[in-house]
């Protein structure tokens, strides 16, 4: 049993399964990321695509079937094409000078990183956002799991709670456009293509399971390494 939402897409009202809605929303949000830079022209393009999406979805509704399912949404998006497959999205002629600088300093958004995750990719996402190795963030989380005090400082051990909250509220990077935004890279045709290729080769070169096992070993190693250093620093200063 699923929750159903009532959505207006291109002027038509649809009943959609919640997961279908999320998929479509994610798709349309990525479109926004590209085309809003073009101003009114961009809004028109987005509107055309929404209308076409609406038309495609309408075909799935009949007397016997009143609700748009995830599979329907996937089908409609597949027909339109994935954002990465849209060619010539960026129109150089439409940039004003402010538009240009907007593209260079790409917009950075916090996502959870599914390609760098043990639990929910929270640390991976935070690492990508701040541009630091997620290992440090993992160490911090692990460090603060238990309350402890150290000289004047008293830490409450809120790690688990904070992690879970972030896991719930931070969205997962699904599309390649998401992943680029997560790292603050400008979302251009070249970057998308390169990123997609990187993701492919990551999946090809290692079975996820064995990689994770090895990674866990490495992380534990690194954590112990860092703990060791901290202890050494203590010993030296006392």
């Amino acid at each position, binding site marked *: 049993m699923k929750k159903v939402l009532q959505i207006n897409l*291109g*002027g*038509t009202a649809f009943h959609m399964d919640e997961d279908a809605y999320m998929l479509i929303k994610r798709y349309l949000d990525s479109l926004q990321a590209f*085309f809003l830079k073009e101003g009114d*022209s961009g809004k*028109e*393009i987005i509107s*055309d*695509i929404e*209308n*076409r999406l*609406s*038309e495609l979805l*309408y*075909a799935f509704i009949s007397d016997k079937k009143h609700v748009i399912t995830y599979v329907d949404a996937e089908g409609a998006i597949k*027909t*339109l*094409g*994935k*954002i990465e*497959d*849209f*060619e*010539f*999205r960026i*129109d150089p*002629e*439409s940039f004003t000078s402010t538009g240009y600088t907007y593209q260079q300093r790409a917009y950075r958004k916090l996502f959870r990183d599914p390609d760098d995750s043990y639990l929910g990719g929270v640390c991976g996402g935070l690492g990508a956002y701040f541009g630091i190795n997620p290992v440090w963030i993992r160490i911090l989380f692990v460090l603060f799991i238990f309350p402890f005090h150290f000289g004047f400082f008293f830490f409450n051990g809120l790690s688990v709670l904070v992690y879970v909250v972030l896991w719930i509220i931070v969205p997962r990077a699904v599309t390649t456009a998401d992943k680029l935004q997560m790292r603050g890279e400008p979302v251009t*045709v*070249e970057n998308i*293509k390169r990123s997609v290729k990187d993701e492919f080769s990551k999946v090809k070169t290692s079975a996820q399971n064995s990689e994770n096992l090895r990674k866990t070993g490495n992380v534990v190693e690194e954590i112990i390494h860092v703990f060791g250093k901290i202890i050494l620093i203590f010993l030296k200063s006392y």
Partner: protein
Amino acid sequence: MNLENAKAQMRKGVLEYCILSIIAEGDAYASDILGKLKTAELIVVEGTLYPLLTRQKNTGLLSYRWEESTQGPPRKYYTITEKGKDFLNELDKSWGELVDAVKNIRSRNSI
């Protein structure tokens, strides 16, 4: 300059030329244009067309009117403008010149 870029640049010019050409033959919806491109084996994803069409419209090469549809929202029905026709003529000439030049050069090299 990498291969992907080189191909993309070729495609962009050709695609815009073809779209204009198809609409010049007869007023069309985006899906009609897609169909004709497919028949000609020029494969594009639907999403590629919408930005190109809108930009050509904004440059004044195309215009559209809304047509009601029983299958959902109203659709844009595109026509070529006078300016678009002139533009197309120029593109025809340019294309002819380019094709001849390339044939000439490639036949000499025969690699």
